[in-house]
């Protein structure tokens, strides 16, 4: 659990965070989204004290972070950043093992955990564990970065635009993997991004941060349907809000159960955006829906268009 209580922070004259309060629950995937300079990265860094607060309190599992020894605090919290920051003089395995080594795990435990993470992050190219970072692709480097953040099984992981520099395909595959890992392990993740689609894809809850304050906090659909003001409305998508909504909802929730249709079926677990893309590709306005291998119903274009919030 992470709590911010009336947190304030300024760089010289400029106010970066103003009287901000927020509570992130255990096991939650929480996304802070906002434009550059909104203070979201700074807010994230107050949790592991890479940034100190000028006023207010940040608590991790009920303890004021300023009362915890700095290195111990950081070793207990996973951290991944956009520039990755792998150690160039260490192999992939050594990079992943960083925090377990700092925590003085036994060699056997470290080895087992590294192997587990290489598997978990799909770093399954033969011999990759002994390679150096500069021989890896950008996507592989960030997989190692995420593996390193998760290595010591932290209960809280901070991620600062970790996928921001990756191509769309790699980014989406890593998003899917991260979301699955988070769901399986129950890790609390605080994730910063300026990409609204990424925020909606990953976040259980999303906070829109504007000018050093939280403009709105809620589930993705709440933000789309009930933006508190025009600033939030503009930021979450303006006229594209409905298109975004399709990415958040699944086919299963909107299909006509038992109906029939021709064409290549879509999966019940797919997003409505995927279904729409499939309709456009097939030039059809209705498609069959498949669940566990069987056709269970149909999805209809008119329903997507007419759908009430």
């Amino acid at each position, binding site marked *: 659990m992470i709590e911010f209580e009336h947190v304030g922070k300024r760089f010289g004259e400029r106010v970066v965070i103003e009287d901000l309060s927020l509570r992130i629950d255990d096991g939650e995937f929480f996304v802070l989204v906002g434009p550059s300079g909104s203070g979201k990265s700074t807010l994230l860094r107050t949790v*592991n004290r*890479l940034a100190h607060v000028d006023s207010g309190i940040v608590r991790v599992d009920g303890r004021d972070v300023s009362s915890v020894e*700095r*290195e*111990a*605090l*950081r*070793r*207990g919290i996973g*951290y991944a*950043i956009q*520039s*990755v*920051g*792998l*150690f*160039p*003089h260490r192999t992939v395995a050594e990079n992943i093992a*960083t*925090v377990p080594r*700092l925590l003085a795990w036994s060699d056997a435990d470290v080895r087992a955990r590294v192997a587990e993470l290489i598997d978990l992050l799909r770093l399954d190219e033969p011999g990759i564990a002994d390679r*150096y970072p*500069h021989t890896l692709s950008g996507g592989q480097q960030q997989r190692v*970065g995420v593996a*390193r953040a998760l290595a010591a099984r932290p209960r809280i992981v*901070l991620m600062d635009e970790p996928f921001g520099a990756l191509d769309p395909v790699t980014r989406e595959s890593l998003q899917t993997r991260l979301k699955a890992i988070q769901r399986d392990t129950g890790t609390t993740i605080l994730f910063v991004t300026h990409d609204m689609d990424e925020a909606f894809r990953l976040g259980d809850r999303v906070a829109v941060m504007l000018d050093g304050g939280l403009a709105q906090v809620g589930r993705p659909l709440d933000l789309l349907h009930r933006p508190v003001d025009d600033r939030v409305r503009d930021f979450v998508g303006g006229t594209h809000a409905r298109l975004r909504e399709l990415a958040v909802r699944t086919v299963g929730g909107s299909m006509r159960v038992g109906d029939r249709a021709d064409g290549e079926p879509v999966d019940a677990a797919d997003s409505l955006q995927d279904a729409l893309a499939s309709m456009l590709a097939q030039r059809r306005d209705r498609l069959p829906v498949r669940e566990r291998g069987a056709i269970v119903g149909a999805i209809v274009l008119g329903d997507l268009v007419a759908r009430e919030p």
Partner: protein
Amino acid sequence: MRGVDASLRGLGRAPFAGRLAPTLRIVVPLTVLVVLLLVLPHSGDWFHAWLPELSHPLYTRTSFAALTLTHVWLVAAATAASVILGLGLGILATRPSGRSLLPTVRAVAVIGQTFPPVAVLAIAVPLLGFGSAPILLALVLYGVLPVLGQSVAGLEQVPASTLHAADGMGYGRWRRLWEVELPLAAGPIMAGVRLSAIVSVGTATIGSAVGATTLGSPIIEGLIGNNPAYVVQGALLVGALALSVDGLLGAVERRFQRVR
């Protein structure tokens, strides 16, 4: 940067000829040095044949082996002191708390470099007396700058993202320095150490002008006594020694650079 790393990493897998070159840079000058030490004491007849007008064609006041040994000792001591001072100041000046010292530290080191060694000797002799002490001081003043400069350069080129990540992982300040910064700066630092040592090998010769026993003794005596044979004997040994030191420290430097 990556291109350089890749080519350096490639050294380990280079074909035979590629691997031979660095080895030759050590073996050849060392062999020459050893052969010179063995042969020179018995070369009186050759120098006599070349310069028949000299009554003493071979330097015999101190054995060449003893001269080489004291010369090496002087250079080693001066280089060690330069590394301790240069690296220490370099580390200090790149810490957040010491960053304000950086311009001052640089200025002092540059002043040390602009002072001619002979001038250092002239000032040092009245204070320290004749012998090895004044030349040791001059060598250290001279040798600090390359080590300091390269230490600062090496430490500052460690990627900021790597340091940021190291902080975020929970490295303490000194552990980060030892496990992350110094290994990544080791290549440039060793280049500075090598430069410092080579400069010292040459500069140490003038120590003989103030009573230190070095390979400069035959050179200076030869210059004063109009005996070119002495000059040649000293110069040959100094040259071979300088190339040997360069080859050895160069190999260490490449080892460190391959760490990346």
